[in-house]
């Protein structure tokens, strides 16, 4: 397919999105990530039944925390697609990239750089 998607996205592979914890996402933001999005299988198609549903709930928790502390909950997102949907993967990556460009960088990153 040789599809293009933004190059500033780092993929962290997990066996199932059910493995992704609130803490993993928060740590990423704490280290300066501008956004974190979780891409899971389609709802109802989870090999482990509810991994992607758990991931969605955890993303929602992270969104609430980020909103509370003034970082912006929109920086965390959950997407679902099937493994055969390459073009959709690229579309979601572009969508997330644009969302982050609109929101600007993670303020934590700027503070870290100031402190260093």
């Amino acid at each position, binding site marked *: 397919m040789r599809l293009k998607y933004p190059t500033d996205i780092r993929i962290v592979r997990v066996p199932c999105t059910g493995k992704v914890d609130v803490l993993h996402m928060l740590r990423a933001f704490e280290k300066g990530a501008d956004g974190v999005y979780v891409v899971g299988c389609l709802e109802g198609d989870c090999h482990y039944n509810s991994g992607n549903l758990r991931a969605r709930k955890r993303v929602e928790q992270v969104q609430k925390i980020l909103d*509370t*502390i003034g970082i912006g909950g929109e920086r965390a997102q959950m997407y679902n697609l099937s493994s055969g949907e390459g073009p959709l993967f690229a579309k979601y990556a572009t969508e997330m990239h644009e969302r982050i460009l609109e929101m600007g960088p993670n303020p*934590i990153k700027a503070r870290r750089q100031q*402190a260093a």
Partner: protein
Amino acid sequence: MIVADRKPIEEIIEEVKGYKHILVLGCNECVTVCEAGGKKEVGVLASALRMHAMNEGREVQIDEHTLERQCDHEYLEEIRDRIDQYDAVVSLACGVGVQFMAEKYHSTPIYPGVNTTFLGATEERGLWTERCQACGSCILARTGGICPIARCAKRLLNGPCGGSSSGRCEINKDVDCAWHLIIERLKALGKLEDYEELSPLKDWSKDRAGGPRKVVREDVQL
């Protein structure tokens, strides 16, 4: 177990905003099981507090630690050599742990990170319900193993009130009528005659009405 619920992060942020060195201290017992104050919740809260402080341009050091229990001297002693490094501690233990910490480390402000709620059971993941009010004189032997003190809104001792309807309590249709449950259970046990026995007045002095309580066991004291 003691069931606690997480406090809103905003509330904790407000409590500790003036401090520069903070310890977020979890407990490995009940609050870990009810997912309110264990190692993971300590990590989440500490991370949120760090990011909030950084976002406001404040330099704050927030450390994380989780003790086996916060209601026993020997475990609380584990942090004696480092407690002086901190201006404040946010304890994610139940109210017992928070108070025991405060008693032990008199000069360090301790803030609660959870709302201690009740003595209950895990019905399913994410659902905890009240079962006991620690009234000090258990009557479960007579009530089919279902407690009317904890589960009846009126704490009735001799059968349901007039508000019981189709097995539900009048305060809320989602709440089971404890006495309905008791009668059903006594029927199942073939002990319905127990229901006929009038319960004498309960000695409430063993409940909170008698003030703070203590258990003294000379046989196990050293």
